[in-house]
């Protein structure tokens, strides 16, 4: 288990170092959302990702950490970038990677999610990386799966590795690597966004001043959550006033807007959305100088983000993609450190 990381040259072994203490630094066999992570656990992921980033930076990026370990990417929704990111991460760790794409729901196929899981388990999957259109689906699988489940996005609910890579990216560019008191704006279709929900947990845990901004129809329910606070205590702000949100912001994360929001009657038109809520250079001018621009991708350039902002000097979008690999390597090695220990 922790031998996995000791093989990484130049890097400490965060798991081994802290495993002598109580409670264990990393107790999670699965990563289903960021809500269960304490701040020290979040830092452990980020620190581990630093070590992984050094491996990725090598000419021949390869660690033996997960040699012989079956990692199966089980994707019920099409997603090239997240799937490839997990695949690359697992391969860098020498895992045996299998990709399973299921189009249409399991119900239509007549095969239940739990049946599929048991089949993949019998075929040697020790880690299931799961993308599913239904919120909560990975919890059902994690209930019965003997290995580790990593949530690669479930419905509107969670996308924990995305939130962690966002945090990782922000931290690298903020003075003192700290988000404490920094104003971070999540702009766009918050209602349907698993990225926004997972980021709420991590960003507020990091002490950031989080603002959610978008049209009122796409903020449904979030005023109530803001009043309650994240985890019942950590405050954030909800507004449809883009100028107020962006003013003096340290970072802004634009969210993808799906075409079907118009058909559902949530918005009048893409054009109106872009005009009122699109992240343009002019609006970005309201933010602090050097305000970081993030987007979980794929971007609709000209809708939620203007092309010159998407590729501009403040954009960290391609860096997010690169950091995603390091974060996913970190998550894969941390969760397997628990499941392999349980196996042993």
């Amino acid at each position, binding site marked *: 288990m922790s031998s996995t990381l000791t093989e990484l040259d130049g890097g400490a072994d965060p798991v081994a170092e802290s495993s002598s203490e109580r409670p264990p630094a990393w107790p999670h066999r699965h990563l289903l959302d960021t809500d269960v992570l304490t701040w020290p656990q979040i830092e452990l992921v980020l620190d581990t990702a630093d070590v992984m980033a050094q491996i990725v930076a090598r000419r021949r990026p390869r660690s033996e950490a997960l040699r012989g370990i079956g990692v199966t990417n089980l994707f019920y929704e099409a997603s090239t970038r997240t799937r490839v990111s997990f695949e690359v991460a697992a391969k860098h760790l020498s895992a045996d990677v299998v990709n399973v794409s299921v189009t249409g729901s399991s119900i239509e196929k007549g095969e239940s999610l739990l049946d599929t899981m048991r089949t993949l388990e019998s075929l040697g999957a020790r880690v299931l990386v799961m993308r599913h259109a239904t919120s909560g689906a990975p919890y*059902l699988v994690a209930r019965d799966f003997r290995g580790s489940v990593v949530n690669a996005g479930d*419905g509107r609910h*969670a996308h924990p590795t995305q939130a962690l890579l966002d945090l990782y990216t922000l931290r690298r560019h903020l003075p003192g690597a700290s988000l404490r008191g920094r104003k971070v704006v999540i702009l766009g279709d918050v209602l349907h966004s*698993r990225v926004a929900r997972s980021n709420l947990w991590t960003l507020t845990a990091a002490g950031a001043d989080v603002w959610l901004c978008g049209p009122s129809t796409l903020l449904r329910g*979030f005023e*109530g959550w803001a009043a309650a606070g994240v985890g*019942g205590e950590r405050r954030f702000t909800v507004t449809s006033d883009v100028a107020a949100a962006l003013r003096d912001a340290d970072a802004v994360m634009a969210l993808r807007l799906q075409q079907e929001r118009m058909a559902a009657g949530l918005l009048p038109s893409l054009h109106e959305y872009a005009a009122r809520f699109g992240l343009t250079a002019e609006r970005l001018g309201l933010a602090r100088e050097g305000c970081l621009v993030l987007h979980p991708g794929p971007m609709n350039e000209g809708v939620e983000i203007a092309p010159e902002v998407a590729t501009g000097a403040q954009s960290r979008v391609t860096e997010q993609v690169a950091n995603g690999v390091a974060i996913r390597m970190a998550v894969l090695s941390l969760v397997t450190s628990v499941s392999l220990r349980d196996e042993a």
Partner: protein
Amino acid sequence: MTAVTGSRAASDIGRAVDLDLSGAWLVDPATRRQGPGDLVVRDGRVVSIAWLEGDEANGIDARGVVVASGFVDLHAHLREPGNEAAETIASGLAAAAHGGFTAVCAMPNTTPPIDRAAMVDAARAAAVVSGSPVRLLQVGAATAGRAGEQLAALGELADAGVVGFSDDGSPIQRPDLLRNALAYAGMLGLPVIDHPEDLDQTSGAEANDGLVATVLGLRGWPAAAEASAVARDIEILVEVGHDVPAARLHLTHLSTAASIEHVRHAKAAGLAVTCDVTPHHLALTDEWIAGSRRWSWQALDDAGRSRDPWRDGVLEAEPYDGSLRVNPPLRSAVDARACLEGLRDGTVDAIASDHAPHTQVDKDVEFGLARPGIAGIETALGLVLEAVDAGLLPLDRAIEALTTGPARALGRFSPPGLVEGAVADLVVFDRAARWMPDAGSLLTRGWGGPLRGRSLAGRVLLTIAGGRLAFEDAAPA
């Protein structure tokens, strides 16, 4: 001390009962009398009831063994014909008896739906063959094939003995058809039982629109989708009532504070409207989907607002348990309190189980794909008694809502009550004995259930329906 004598075996189900019960707490909702007493049943008839006073009554209170009239369930799904893997009439009636029910209204949303007299006869025959003495009260479909396009054969169904008409599982969506169903059913002397839901507001909905749905990323199911349907139904009843004074509307499984308030106003205006709530909407809340397992009344703050389960640190179970997916969805603690208040003040006439069993294949799946429904006919009494134990509902009022309340809502049917000379139709349960709903104790074929493996108040010891044995606990206290 309470004594129950007369030993019976499982093979005695359906046999006429002899029973000697001394020193129990008797609750007779028909006469609104309750107190310590002795009860003797011979050959299925109540031959004597002695209300105890003075020294004889010492040490007997309502916290031990209780005898009440048999319960009447206004709302259950027995799944036969069409989905016998989830439940049959036989297994459903057995489960009902275990829950203390001696009469069960079966909803007609079977496959095919019960919209013709021959199907009513077939259901009744299956009940006879089952050997269970629990009365099957069949509800007929309100519209042909439950398709919501034209009236079902209401007169023919009435002649076959249905107790009301409903498209339950769905609302009667077209207002003109609801109007006609109310008028025609009124002419036949029967109620229309509506499942109030504005489907345009609930398309794809997964959980009550509130903090839990927002945090868990579940598609919101607005309270307004129910309350606006309730308001519509009542407005239509007002007008139908001018032409057909006998028209009666029963609103089933109300779950929101606003719905209860609409009915309160309608009753104050003298309208012929009745309603029921389910045990799970009284005791459980949407918090359970996030992993909380506290009762609804424990989820309210001093100001009467819903508490935050994350702040309170009460999330103990895994989230997204498909057994909690139900229509209408589990609501907020504020809504549950309004349902309890409606029961106390008489706005709510009945507690109905909305027993909705499903197979594992339909239930042990992704939360949003799980078929809605809780198989709750056996845990109904337990949940109600939890509310009684918490001081939120007087015992006699709870019993009324399980007996005379539903009987009144049906109109033509009345339970015999605890009366000397009458056929015995009663339930004996021990409030002091807790029990564990699980595969070993439950008789429903339905899979899972949010209360499995959790201790519940009030063990049913004996159920007698129409003088005959319907259920007896294998290991009486």
